[in-house]
């Protein structure tokens, strides 16, 4: 492989962020191109077909499926209310009269002579989509979708849980290597996106959810704590649907790992600003990373380009992302071409680097570093 390293996650003060807001089915778009929108503003809505309930009328009336149409008092497309009679047998001198009533309100969808079933579709389910971030509508796609654009500080996390949320950014620790404990969370955190340091404890996560914090952005969390918080083990990194009361964005990974300096500086400089976050993550083909977006609605600057630099070079700043140096920072000093044998006896492409904290010279597989910006 030409580039045996993990590309770093994007952290920039100047990004042009565009987010498409689309409905699951066509409906109504409530904004226009050029309109300024706020994160919590309703921009589109629709109605999804209701849930289907199956009523076996043949069974209810003790008749054959083929006889069902004769006994029905409703037709396909009719609206029905819960408890309404939809089929009845003709009474024999007033005796043996049986009826079938609908257990839900809705519309008669199909009537089957083969199975004797009547499908009743429940009332439509309303779906509303908000703008997610403060910005400007730059595109409207018919009655299905819009795109919101914002100049913003932008930070990608490595893993998140919980979906979209927004609130004011609030620092709850004073340094990127501080642990977020529960006693740091109080009522002033309600509705805020909280910024922590190296780790958040289980108690602090629970406290954040309890006071109604919009989210927590932090370096790491112990795996067992996250499992406890979720109520089940996190098996695969496909997240975003969890209903846990607050969205969590990890910037570094599992364990206690100081938030990278650049990420910390970016967030610390924007305390109090309106922030949108999303924990949705998909570490598979079509990768999705969790994100923190801090829009600057009045800004006019040129956005930074996405860094697609081809690889590492001596002097590159890297984070080590595997034992025995997990979480530490280093500066690349050499990139030998030849494969080299490591402790496991595997022959791999390596790099040499100097650890930032101790100055120790180390050799690590190139696959085990992540390029980051200072």
């Amino acid at each position, binding site marked *: 492989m030409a580039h*045996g390293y*993990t590309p770093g996650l994007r952290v920039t003060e100047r990004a042009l962020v565009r987010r498409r807001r689309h409905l699951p089915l066509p409906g109504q778009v409530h904004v226009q191109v050029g309109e300024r929108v706020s994160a919590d503003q309703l921009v589109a809505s629709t109605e999804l077909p209701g*849930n*289907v*309930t*199956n009523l076996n009328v043949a069974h209810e009336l003790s008749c054959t*499926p083929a006889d069902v149409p004769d006994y029905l008092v409703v037709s396909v497309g009719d609206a029905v209310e819960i408890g309404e009679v939809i089929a009845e047998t003709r009474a024999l001198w007033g005796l043996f009269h049986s009826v079938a009533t609908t257990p839900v309100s809705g519309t008669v*969808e*199909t009537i*089957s002579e*083969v*199975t*004797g*079933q009547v*499908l009743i*579709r*429940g009332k439509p389910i309303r779906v509303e989509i908000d703008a997610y971030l403060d910005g400007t509508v730059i595109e409207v796609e018919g009655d299905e979708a819009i795109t919101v654009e914002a100049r913003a500080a932008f930070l990608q996390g*490595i*893993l998140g849980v919980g979906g979209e949320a927004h609130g004011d950014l609030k620092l709850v620790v004073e340094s990127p290597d501080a642990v977020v404990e529960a006693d740091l969370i109080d009522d002033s955190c309600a509705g805020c996106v909280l910024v922590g340091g190296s780790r958040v404890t289980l108690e602090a996560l629970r406290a954040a959810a309890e006071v109604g914090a919009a989210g927590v952005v932090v370096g790491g969390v*112990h*795996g*067992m704590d996250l499992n406890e918080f979720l109520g089940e*083990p*996190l*098996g*695969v*990194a496909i997240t975003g649907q969890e209903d846990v009361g607050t969205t969590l964005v990890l910037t570094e*990974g*599992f*364990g206690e790992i100081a938030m990278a300096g650049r990420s910390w500086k970016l967030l610390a400089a924007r305390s109090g600003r309106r922030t949108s976050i999303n924990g949705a993550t998909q*570490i*598979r*083909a*079509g990768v999705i990373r969790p994100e923190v977006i801090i829009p600057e609605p009045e800004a006019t600057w040129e956005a930074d380009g996405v860094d697609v630099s081809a690889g590492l070079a001596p002097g590159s700043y890297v984070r080590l*992302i*595997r*034992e*025995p140096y*997990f979480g530490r920072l280093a500066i690349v000093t050499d990139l030998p071409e030849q494969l080299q044998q*490591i*402790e*496991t*006896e*595997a022959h*791999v492409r390596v790099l040499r680097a100097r650890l930032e904290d101790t100055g120790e010279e180390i050799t*690590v*597989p190139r*696959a*085990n570093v*992540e390029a980051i910006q200072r």
Partner: protein
Amino acid sequence: MAADMPLRSILATDCGSTTTKAILIELVEGEYRLRVRGEAPTTVEAPYEDVTRGVLNAVSEVEEVSGRRLIADGDIIRPQRGDQGVDAYLSTSSAGGGLQVMVVGLVRTMTAESAQRAALGAGAIVMDVLALDDGRRDYERIQRMRELRPDMILISGGVDGGEQRRVVEMAELVGAANPRARLGAKYELPVIFAGNADARDAISDTLADKTALTLVDNLRPTMERENLGPARAEIQELFLEHVMAQAPGYSELMTWTDADIMPTPAAVGSLIEAIAKRDGINVVGVDIGGATTDVFSVFEGVFNRTVSANLGMSYSVSNVLAETGLPNILRWVTEQPDPGLVGNAIRNKMIRPTTIPQTLADLTIEQAAAREALRLAFGQHKLLATELKGIQRQRDIADAFAAGGAQTLVEMMSLDLLVGSGGVLSHAPRRNQAALMLIDAFEPEGITRLAVDSIFMMPQLGVLSTVNAEAARQVFYRDCLIPLGTCIAPVGHGRPGSPCLRVRLTGGGRSEDLQLNVGEMRLIPLPEGQTAEVALDPVRRFDVGAGPGRALTATVQGGVVGVVIDARGRPLRLPEDEAERISAIRAWNAELDVYPRNLAAGEVA
């Protein structure tokens, strides 16, 4: 292209989710051999969105290494002219998430399970199985169909001539869901009906207007018989027509290949099936990837495949941890690391899937997790690879006490060959590690050959087996499989340290007379290509294949590891006492030379 057509050279590619791999096979002095391989990133997703670019890049690498011109005007040169071009170009694909199928049946363990086997055998990922007895309400089933957006739906249910009403009910739910295809939003979702033939008219009335419906022969025409062929063939046909045709660049790629593009797992399956048939052997194959683990088996000619969708070594390794629990992973290692830190390390592998172990301690934990992933995946395979359920059969007293319903077809004592594939097995720093992982996870019984796939070219050989089975077989044995050797494992249990098995081995320039006690392992070097005669004499409670306490003689094959004699008993039980367990694992590691000396002695932290 006709089967077994004479070919002088073959180019084959496998378009995976991340990498497109190309191999060049040539006929050299009457033998088919792998000449070179090349690879390049797959280009299905943005910004390229054209699979052929990745194919041409991978083939260019083959061109460079082989010095043979293969591409002209953006196409593969065919037929071979002098030292240019090839006689055939073939391809498999799992790019874009593979073939995703939803199965609908009546009874989970009967028609729905048969349909699941048909879909898996065709190389599909089964996203969910809906059945009357799945415990869900109708609206939940409908919601599930809408959410999942499968590539196609396979409906089964009812035996021919049987009651139709229930299967039509399920079809009505499919109609009510009105699900959309995953790719190509404008296209109708392909639906295959392979149930009660008498219900076809009613099914057509229900679904023909809403879906691209195809009717094929019932996959369970009677309770006693499965007929999976027609449904499997139709799934693969629709894979080409609908799924592949929607994926970027595939319409073009399909015009290049000399045989239909096969879903990657279907190709591996057909290779294993072809080898088992041709050599008259029972085979188990496993491919452990980052996200999923595929298990294939052929026992007495019956092929089965399962996909354990969330058991893998990177993307899904946290799920292995969740399913088996940390103690089950740590039981395979001799160190006593902080469980919390090990848990974090495993989860960090999930979020940074391309990292590799740098320390021996880290490697042993990764290989411990692999044992559990393989063990769980094989367990799932044994549950699905069964004789048909729902059949009345005579039960003996043993059946009455046995758990579950139908008997699994996976009979380990009759297994001849166990093949491992996937990074953690194929790229283990020592082949002995791969051998021990396979033995610990699969627990082969009696006499079993072990092998690993050198560079995972089974998909390409699988599609080749459909046009030239002999060429595929030759390359499989000569260049694809790395024989690890043979495992001899008596079945039974005894007091640790008490006599278990006497072994006399003659051949390969050596003569050994060994006495193994319960709980011991022994490695006898026997190089690749050599064979030896073994006379096995187990004690009364142990069986090596001839029955408890009965002697057996056999010829065993050598390999890069040799002959492993495993007297730990079956089913395998590790000592419960912590100190005894650690001491036993160190002894096995040392005997099989699994890790560098210092780790075997427990000197590495």
